[in-house]
């Protein structure tokens, strides 16, 4: 009964960073708290009332002391803040070579899907030493994807994407919690993060393989007739999507709008998503407002399908836009589907 842990496992690259900062703040905490308690104790003994008519010296303050205990804590706070931002930057900025995994939360389960098509529920299998970037959304209410062993957490917000990343350092099984209260079965919206050796993870991936996300997205791209306008030609009625991901897109200026000239937008997942759900929201320069593109809401493109479309757009290289009549071969970059056993 007495062997219970007091510190969670350190299983990601940021975990030691967070723990170092925690220890630093803890040291300051203990230092000041101990000082306060010690002085309380000391003064209580030294200055306990000796006689009922005792009148202690009546003085009102000391400018030096007061300035001292305003300035010194301020400086300490500044140090903590700067260190905190440094660790925060590590926590939120994923490395360029991260693997994407898409997470959809709903009452009361987590769905994960890999770009290569594997799907799982309330679990996430990842390889040790490989950075993973999660793109998270929710189908209903707010949730929060929390892995204490990795010291990372991000809310799942319906209607938009949030991201987080981690790089596991230790094989094992760790807790996955929903930490944003989401209704009756909130405490059952839990799961496990399984960190495997890379070879095991590859094996696991191939066992679970299905049609890749990008490939699924390509099918949708044809089925929804996106290709009719996004033809990848300069005369097309809609912008080419080739290699558009993470580019800066100049925005169209239209009458009466407050968009300043030269405004650009980063074509990240959130922008791609917005352009599918609300095409007129931010239109690329050179195209008409309102957009001729119909808006694709949840009934036309579900959150899962949205991830597939985005995966496809992200994978789209120069000259790979399919022609209107399907005849090109499947680009190899999309992760050829493994055959199910």
């Amino acid at each position, binding site marked *: 009964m007495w062997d219970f842990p007091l510190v969670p496992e350190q299983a990601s690259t940021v975990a030691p960073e967070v723990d170092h900062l925690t220890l630093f703040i803890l040291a300051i905490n203990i230092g000041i708290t101990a000082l306060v308690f010690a002085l309380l104790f000391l003064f209580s003994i030294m200055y306990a009332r000796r006689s009922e008519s005792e009148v202690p010296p009546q003085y009102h303050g000391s400018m030096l002391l007061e300035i001292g205990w305003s300035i010194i804590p301020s400086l300490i706070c500044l140090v903590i803040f700067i260190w905190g931002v440094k660790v925060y930057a590590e926590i939120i900025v994923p490395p360029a070579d991260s693997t994407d995994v898409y997470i959809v939360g709903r009452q009361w389960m987590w769905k994960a899907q890999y770009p290569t098509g594997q799907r799982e529920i309330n679990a996430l299998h990842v390889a040790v030493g490989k950075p993973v970037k999660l793109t998270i959304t929710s189908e209903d209410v707010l949730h929060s994807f929390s892995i204490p062993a990795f010291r990372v957490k991000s809310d799942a917000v319906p209607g938009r994407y949030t991201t987080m990343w981690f790089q596991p350092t230790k094989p094992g099984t760790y807790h996955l919690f929903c930490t944003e209260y989401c209704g009756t079965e909130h405490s059952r919206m839990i799961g496990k993060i399984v960190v495997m050796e890379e070879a095991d993870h590859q094996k696991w991936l191939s066992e679970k393989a299905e049609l890749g996300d990008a490939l699924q997205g390509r099918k949708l791209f044809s089925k929804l007739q996106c290709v009719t306008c996004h033809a990848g030609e300069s005369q097309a009625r809609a912008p080419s999507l080739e290699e558009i991901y993470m580019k800066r897109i100049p925005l169209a200026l239209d009458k009466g709008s407050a968009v300043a000239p030269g405004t650009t937008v980063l074509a990240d997942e959130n922008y791609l998503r917005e352009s599918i759900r609300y095409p007129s929201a931010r239109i690329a320069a050179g195209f008409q407002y309102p957009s001729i593109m119909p*808006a694709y809401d949840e009934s036309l493109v579900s959150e899962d399908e949205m991830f597939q479309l985005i995966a496809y757009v992200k994978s789209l290289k120069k000259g790979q836009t399919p022609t209107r009549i399907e005849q090109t071969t499947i680009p190899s970059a999309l992760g050829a589907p493994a055959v199910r056993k």
Partner: protein
Amino acid sequence: MSLTEKHAPTKGHDDASHGHDHDLAHHFDNVEQQHDAGNLGMWMFLTTEVLFFGGLFAAYTIYRYKFEKVFEQASNILDPLLGGVNTIVLIFSSVTMAFAVRSAQQGKSKAIVAWLAATIVFGSMFLGIKYFEWKHDATLHVFPTSDFNWTWAREKHAEHEHHESHEPEMRGLVFNSPKVPQSYIDKDSKNPEAKQARLFFFLYFMMTSLHAAHMVIGFGIMAVIMIYAWNGFYSANYYVPVESVGLYWHFVDLVWIFLYPLLYLLGAHLSAGH
């Protein structure tokens, strides 16, 4: 909310015999203290009102930033001319209110009643115009309920602009909203801008109805004060309630001064050419 804290001489705590003068509540030392306390209290109350409407203004600002174009188009549905006329009517009621307070400062009780009555008349005129605006809004299906239809609203609004035909529906007091055909509902359900426009109209109705509610409450307070004034309750030494309702009414005016450009004028330029 009138900060009426004066006690009639026989009421209040049971020490009315302290030799206070007639206009002074027992716990104050003199009439200046009493007046300053009442005045400060009313200003404090108005600060909470600023923040009360401030929450809505914050929501408005954020959504206007996010859905700028749709907010302009939605604003264009409203009639800036009617809004402008209403602005002037409301400002005029503020003038009459200012004169009511001025009469109170001079200790002219009957004049207070007259000016307050004028304020209520012009305030009611404002609400009357508002009523006909809302009635027109009902025909356009812009009430932000499930009945809202953006496609319909834009189409009907364009028709109105071309024919200049406000007249027929202005008759009668009953709200009358023709049924929207299914095709419009289908169109709306595929158009996310409909949701954004609905947000604009939600904010529009929320803000204007909250404003109107404040006016109606103001009428009630004014009515009570008119009765007191008629009976000579106020004097040049004691007129905090009149002054307070005056501050309140001017505040209501202030809110409208900001609502007018934010709600009505935002999209006025879109139909500038017609």
